[in-house]
């Protein structure tokens, strides 16, 4: 178990370094640097050079990369050229929107997919199976930002039940903030739940044919108990794998949905930073997002051992 953990952590570190080199290298070839962006085109070469020296931009690329890496680990990410505030603090503030948004989306997606997929699997070819198959195909095909638009049109503007956009912050307690996050999270969750429904159904159908499900039934367990207590726990590994794979899509989706609902999250920050050519912000936001992706995948690996006792010792 410990060795397995150590190996995974090493893999994590390598992936992290690879991404950081990739991101740094890419931002390196972008014309212009934060100093020129701050001063604009009217700056004299002397002031530009002075600012560069002050910001440490005159050092060789390797030194600047190592400094950035150190900053990433210590949380000191430099100062945003447009906002004039430390990037670290800016990102933390925005994560307080994006992480709850994606977390809520995952909860909703699982909350839709698990019952639907399992019910479909309990009777392959039945009515619920047909509904689930249709839902899966349709849900995968619709873009999340379009679902966002439709939800704004109907639930927010039409019925007036939930806000159409904006974010009140967490200052007034979780109520208003969650209300603001509900529709965007649903928009993110629907396509994800479609994929998950498909995987859940397929996996549960397979497990329902296993001998131990019959053993459970022979003990007197009802169909639904055999399904939920015996089949589902043994069908979760592929579902969790899919959840891990989807985190990339979820984060890409968050950028879009945050823009639809004007939520001040990481995605909107990245998009605005591009418009303002705030390179420091872009570089760090991308890096933080990529880190979230690999951390989630590391977490998924640990989750396997929770749901499947066979993986506990072997590892």
């Amino acid at each position, binding site marked *: 178990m410990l060795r397995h953990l150590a190996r995974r952590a090493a893999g994590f570190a390598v992936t992290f370094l690879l991404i950081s080199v990739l991101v740094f290298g890419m931002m390196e070839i972008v014309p212009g640097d934060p100093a020129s962006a701050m001063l604009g085109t009217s700056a004299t070469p002397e002031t530009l050079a002075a600012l560069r020296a002050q910001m440490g931009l005159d050092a060789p690329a390797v030194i600047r990369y190592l400094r950035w890496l150190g900053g990433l680990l210590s949380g000191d990410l430099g100062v945003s050229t447009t906002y004039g505030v430390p990037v670290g603090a800016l990102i933390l503030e925005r994560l307080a929107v994006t992480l709850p948004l994606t977390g809520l989306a995952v909860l909703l997606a699982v909350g839709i997919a698990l019952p639907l997929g399992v019910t479909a699997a309990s009777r392959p070819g039945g009515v619920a199976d047909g509904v689930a198959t249709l839902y899966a195909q349709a849900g995968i095909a619709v873009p999340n930002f379009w679902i966002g638009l439709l939800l704004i049109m109907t639930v927010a503007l039409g019925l007036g039940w939930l806000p159409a956009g904006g974010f009140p912050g967490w200052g007034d307690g979780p109520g208003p903030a969650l209300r603001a996050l509900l529709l965007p999270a649903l928009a993110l969750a629907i396509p994800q739940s479609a994929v998950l429904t498909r995987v859940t159904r397929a996996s549960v159908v397979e497990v329902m044919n*296993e*001998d*131990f499900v*019959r*053993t*459970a*039934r*022979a*003990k*007197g*367990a*009802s*169909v639904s*108990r055999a399904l939920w*207590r*015996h089949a589902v*726990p*043994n069908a979760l590994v592929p579902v969790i794998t899919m959840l891990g794979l989807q985190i990339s899509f979820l984060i890409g989706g968050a950028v879009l949905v945050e823009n639809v609902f004007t939520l001040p999250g990481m995605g909107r920050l990245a998009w605005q930073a591009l418009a303002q050519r705030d390179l420091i912000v872009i570089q760090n936001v991308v890096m933080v997002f990529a880190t979230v992706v690999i951390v989630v995948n590391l977490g998924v690996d640990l989750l396997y051992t929770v*749901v*499947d*006792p*066979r993986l506990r*010792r072997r590892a």
Partner: protein
Amino acid sequence: MLAIRNLSIAFPGPDGPVRVVDGVSLEVARGESLGIVGESGSGKSMLSLATIGLLPRSARTSGEIRLEGRNILGMSERALCGVRGRRIGMIFQEPMTALNPAMTAGQQIAEGIRLHRAAGRAEARAEALRLLDRVRIPDPARRIDSYPHEMSGGQRQRVGIAIALALKPDLLIADEPTTALDVTVQKEILDILDELVADLGLSLILISHDLGVIARSTDRTLVMCRGRAVEQGTTEAVLRQPTAAYTRDLIAALPRRARAGLGAAAPLAAGDAR
């Protein structure tokens, strides 16, 4: 106690329904043990699944299966859940796959107890521990928290027996309980099975393709071939003086020493020159 009358089971096939069990009748009295022999595909396993009402949904049945007068085939799902485990216990062939890999041995044994007797967690666990001891698992206090992958095939099958006997059912159906095991382990499992059946006064249906197993553990024997019952009688009579040609073939197919062990009369076996 159990009476099966003219039972037929069919599945829809590409060219019309396929009968896997065809007009079988049998009876098992209280405390009696019945062996069912036959090659794989002879319908024995479908017969046992029908008895606990667990046939696949696509199966079509006719005839009746009466457990103390009540017809299993006509029972509601709810009533069947009350029969399974409590009145009829079942042991399956593959100890490797018949246990849930995500639950400990104790949890799986306790499940039936908690389902049928509304017992509390602690009470069911204590009962599970006693059962593990009865099936002679070494170090039951430790094994109760083991997962199936941490146990050997023989140990798993002992857990399988403990699950089947957890509620002291009236009838135990053992479907090829030792086929997947090593020869030495087979004997241990059969010893435990014989002992428990005698102690608890259970009725037993033992399904096997192995005449040696049938000879050793059953009072009466039913021979099945392609879904039909071709011969039925006391185990001794069936093995010593088989009337059906198919039974003679089965005995003849045994190695000579095994045949001698059964006490089967060699001259009666067809095609045996020595």
